[in-house]
């Protein structure tokens, strides 16, 4: 049942020009940045050779590329999630799901999975670019995988937050705006309290970006992964509750 809903969500995405445009824009933009990074690396190569323990091509090309990709995802996910539930409520198609023998959990997970699958595809396309370097340079596959995992976890977190905010309103634009605001806030929240010790570490822990940075360095800490999984579970849980609640209030 979850897969049926996810499949329709994906289909709906690819039937509209939005998905294709997003894929093209993201790929084009990141390819441009990738080329710049590769160029920089070539210029630096001579000097790097003189250093002991010099950063490799994965650190100097893949990691910065993924850092930019995270920003792009932050900007793009609200556009994908804004319609998920708000549009269905506005046009009345949600009635089909609510009157079908399908629970709220399946509806929410199906919709979530649809978008996450789309974003995972996009991330794989992005990861293919640094992977081409394997033809001529030694790649650190562990770091690369950690980066891809980080991006997918980030995308999952963004989508969960977006899905929840889309359940709160019937105006897709409002949902997109709110999602963008929330994600941006959580992204930069570690800037606050930089001086104070206790507060600083709390904000740093809350920040979406800190846990990602660790993964980009190749540090696979289960606490970081748990942070994202908890984030996702919390927002999905809220969305399911909200959907049940809509039957009561609406």
């Amino acid at each position, binding site marked *: *049942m979850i897969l*049926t*809903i996810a499949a*329709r969500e994906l*289909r*709906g995405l690819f*039937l*509209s020009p939005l998905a294709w445009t997003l894929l093209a824009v993201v790929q084009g933009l990141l390819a441009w940045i990738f080329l710049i990074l590769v160029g920089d690396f070539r210029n630096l190569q001579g000097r790097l050779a003189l250093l002991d323990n010099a950063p490799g091509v994965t650190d100097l090309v893949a990691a910065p590329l993924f850092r930019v990709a995270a920003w792009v995802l932050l900007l793009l996910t609200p556009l994908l999630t804004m319609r998920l539930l708000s549009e269905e409520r506005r*046009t*009345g*198609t*949600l*009635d*089909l*799901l*609510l*009157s*079908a*023998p*399908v*629970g709220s959990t399946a509806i929410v997970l199906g919709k979530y999975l649809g978008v996450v699958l789309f974003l995972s595809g996009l991330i794989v396309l992005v990861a293919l670019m640094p992977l081409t370097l394997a033809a001529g340079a030694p790649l650190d596959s562990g770091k690369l995988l950690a980066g891809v995992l980080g991006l997918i976890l980030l995308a999952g977190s963004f989508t969960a937050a977006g899905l929840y905010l889309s359940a709160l309103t019937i105006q897709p634009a409002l949902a997109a705006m709110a999602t963008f605001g929330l994600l941006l806030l959580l992204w930069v929240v570690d800037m606050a309290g930089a001086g104070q010790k206790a507060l600083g570490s709390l904000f740093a822990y809350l920040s979406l970006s800190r846990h990602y940075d660790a993964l980009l360095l190749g540090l696979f800490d289960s606490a970081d992964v748990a942070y994202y999984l908890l984030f996702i579970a919390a927002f999905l849980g809220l969305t399911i509750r909200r959907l049940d609640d809509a*039957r*009561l209030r*609406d």
Partner: protein
Amino acid sequence: MSDGLGRLFQSKITNNTAAHRPKLVENVMKGERLVQVERLTRSYGGIRAVDEISFTLRKGQVLGFLGLNGAGKSTTMRMLAGVLAPDAGRIAINGADLLDQPRQAKQSIGYLPEQPPLYRELTVDEQLRYSARLHGLDHATCRQALLQTKERCGLADVGRRLIGNLSKGYRQRVGLAQALLHDPPVLVLDEPTVGLDPFQLREMRGLIRTLGRDRGVILSTHLLPEVQATCTHVQIIRAGRLVYAGALADLERQRCSTHLRVGLNAPPPAVNLAQLPGVVQVEELGVGRFRLHHAPDAALHQAVLERACADGWDLWEITPEHAGLEQIFVDLTLGDAPI
């Protein structure tokens, strides 16, 4: 369905595909309760949109839910379909409680909301297949059901067209097909004929009547002719309360012939007519014609005939007049007519 009108409807129905007989319904005894609603209540911000409504729907009934806009029809329909949770009350669909066993109950319902829930970017086939999968139909059953339902709803030619490009009438049919796909014993149709042209209207009504033979159908409408053309039973709702429930035939019988129109070549003064037993009021229609208002149980025609012969009024017309259902509807929905 023992009432005369029900039989009349049945005899008029053209024999549609009998092959499409639901499994669930076969086991059900004739007249079995398909929907049971008890003291259903729902408020919006302190206003009671639906106030302690109770009713039963049996197999073979087409129940017309009649009321003005805002009377609580759609709210009740939404609660029946499980889209909206009631504040209080109980709904049992085909023996399963909608709140305790939502999946079982919802499997037995086909719901067509006011706005058919269709994705504009899908084709008709894709939409129907999606809905079939949501209702747990497997691949083979789905294909079979798709073919039969499309045939039934007149959608055989538009399977590959985009829903966004279809006219309102076709969308309504796709919505109905979607509600029928999993062959539910209960159909809940919220204003199913809105936006249809007269020809489609006739087709849709015929289809609903046919479907009602081996199912239970509830349809809401604010149009009285709709009920007269389609339903076997009628329920009138006013400001969230049920003010009338019964067989359509009863409603017609109950209020009929309270007027008698008579035409006389040699009429007496109106006062003489008013003195006839049971006459409440005399209305002069000119050229020797009168409308006599009388109590429902008075056998006035007898008295009129006798007096006309005895006094030489030269009677040339005597017609019992039926109070239009329209009038009854207006009385029940607006006024405070006693039931």
